[in-house]
């Protein structure tokens, strides 16, 4: 029987989202410490959790954090995990031109390579949307895959770019359920932090469904969000359930990408190709209404 691909992906953001949103946040020590908790406590706790279970995750690390914490990336790499780039400074890509977007990815990958001796095969856009040219240009920079779009439940080809997308979904993201900061506000409506019961019962349902419908199961975790004692303990129990079921195959993003390429990836039918077609054709997307 085919086992369900399980991908544990972890973003290490630190305080970069705040600094990138507004350089004047530099003197907000409390708000910044919400993010740096991930470096101080989240990363070590997650590394221990994964080491105890002999599981490999894919870690997304921005270049600016590597400059500050050089040993972190090589320490993660040294434990058998995959490291990929989150760009340089956790920029909102919607505010960048194509040249700046590519520069962020290239600079992030260079710093990662300097720290670990390995060139990242993949990247994740930290925030916002990429320019249409980005997939093809990123392929030219040597990337094989991206895990950036919140829109699907299995890997797909990004049009004719040669780049593979390993998409994530909000339902399986810790930040959406748990992240909170008073000022600057996140979430903007200051909604309550979700309960562990909500999150892990939803995730259990998603895990059953991934097996049922033949999708992949990709967790998008953030070191500063999931990295608290109780959340990590609950995550550990959840991963034990997956491993114990015998139906989970834990893969890094590169392992999944190689698997998908070997099996042949669907292309024309995917809506990303429709998006590219409609984007270039204002008449077609306007439709037949006179």
């Amino acid at each position, binding site marked *: 029987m085919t086992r369900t691909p399980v991908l544990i992906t972890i973003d290490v953001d630190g305080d970069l989202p705040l600094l990138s949103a507004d350089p004047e946040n530099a003197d907000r020590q409390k708000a910044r410490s919400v993010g740096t908790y991930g470096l101080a406590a989240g990363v070590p706790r997650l590394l221990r959790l994964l080491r105890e279970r002999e599981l490999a995750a894919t870690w997304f690390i921005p270049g600016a954090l590597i400059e500050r914490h050089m040993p972190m990336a090589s320490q993660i790499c040294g434990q058998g995990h995959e490291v990929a780039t989150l760009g340089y400074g956790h920029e909102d890509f919607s505010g960048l031109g194509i040249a700046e977007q590519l520069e962020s990815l290239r600079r992030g990958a260079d710093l990662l390579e300097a720290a670990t001796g390995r060139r990242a095969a993949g990247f994740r856009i930290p925030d916002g*949307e990429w320019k249409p040219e980005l997939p093809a240009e990123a392929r030219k920079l040597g990337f094989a895959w991206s895990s950036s779009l919140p*829109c699907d439940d299995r890997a797909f080809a990004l049009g004719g770019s040669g780049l593979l997308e390993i998409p994530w979904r909000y339902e399986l993201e810790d930040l959406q359920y748990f992240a909170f900061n008073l000022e600057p506000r996140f979430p903007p409506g200051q909604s309550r932090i979700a309960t562990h*019961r909500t999150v892990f019962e939803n995730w259990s349902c998603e895990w059953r469904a991934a097996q049922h419908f033949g999708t992949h199961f990709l967790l998008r975790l953030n070191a500063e969000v999931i990295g608290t004692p109780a959340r990590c303990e609950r995550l550990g129990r959840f991963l034990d359930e997956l491993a114990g079921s015998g139906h989970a195959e834990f893969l890094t993003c590169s392992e999944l990408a190689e698997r998908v390429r070997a099996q042949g990836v669907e292309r024309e039918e995917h809506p990303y190709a429709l*998006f590219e077609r409609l984007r270039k054709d204002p008449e077609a997307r306007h439709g037949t209404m006179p």
Partner: protein
Amino acid sequence: MLNGSLWDKPGYFGLGAYGPHRAVPRLLAILRNHGLHATFFTPAWVVEQWPELCQQIVESGHEIAGHGYRHEVFHRMPEPEHRALLQHAQGIYRRLLGSPVTGFRAPSGDWDTATPRLLAETGHLYSSSLRGQDRPFAHQGVDLVEVPAKSLFDDYTAFAYHRGPNFPEGLDRIAHYGDVFEDWGAEFLSGAREGAVSVTIWHPKVIGTPGRALALDEFLGGLLDSGQLKFATCHNIAAFWKERFAS
């Protein structure tokens, strides 16, 4: 997203396209397994982009009903434009699906005060756009049945989520699946005891993601096992009601 900004947002487009691409086929299989028929309120532009899928919906015994051409806001739309949109959409349903639709649900909130009259003019039997009652009713002075729905049955209120553009605006969390389906079931069953008609507002891209589709499958199985409900398309409810009470 009719202002053009969608075309800078491949991820956001993909989240919507997940509906026809992955979710609708999954939902059709679930409905087939339970022997149920549903009403799919589908903008005519979507029928143009995914004609084969929409034909498959009709061929499977489900109903396609109107939902604008490109999910327009009809509130305070000039009447000539409003009428032309409804006529244009009817032409697409007729050409691609074999017949014009008999039902309509106003997209994006409020419709215009002229909408009921224009719907009757363009061949519609019913609307499912208002919220104000538990059973179908006749619109005043117009030959149109209303099959009212309830916002509490809208999956957006519990599950829809995206950042950039933010939905919900305050980025409230995705709800606990089990609690939401439990409350929906309670409304269905309490409503059935009173003779109410319960009408959902579900979106394939929201309800048809893997975990929620599985929860929906089990939910429908439980409702069928209860033996306390009758399932029908909105068209059949409206036609039944009109024959029984309005003639």
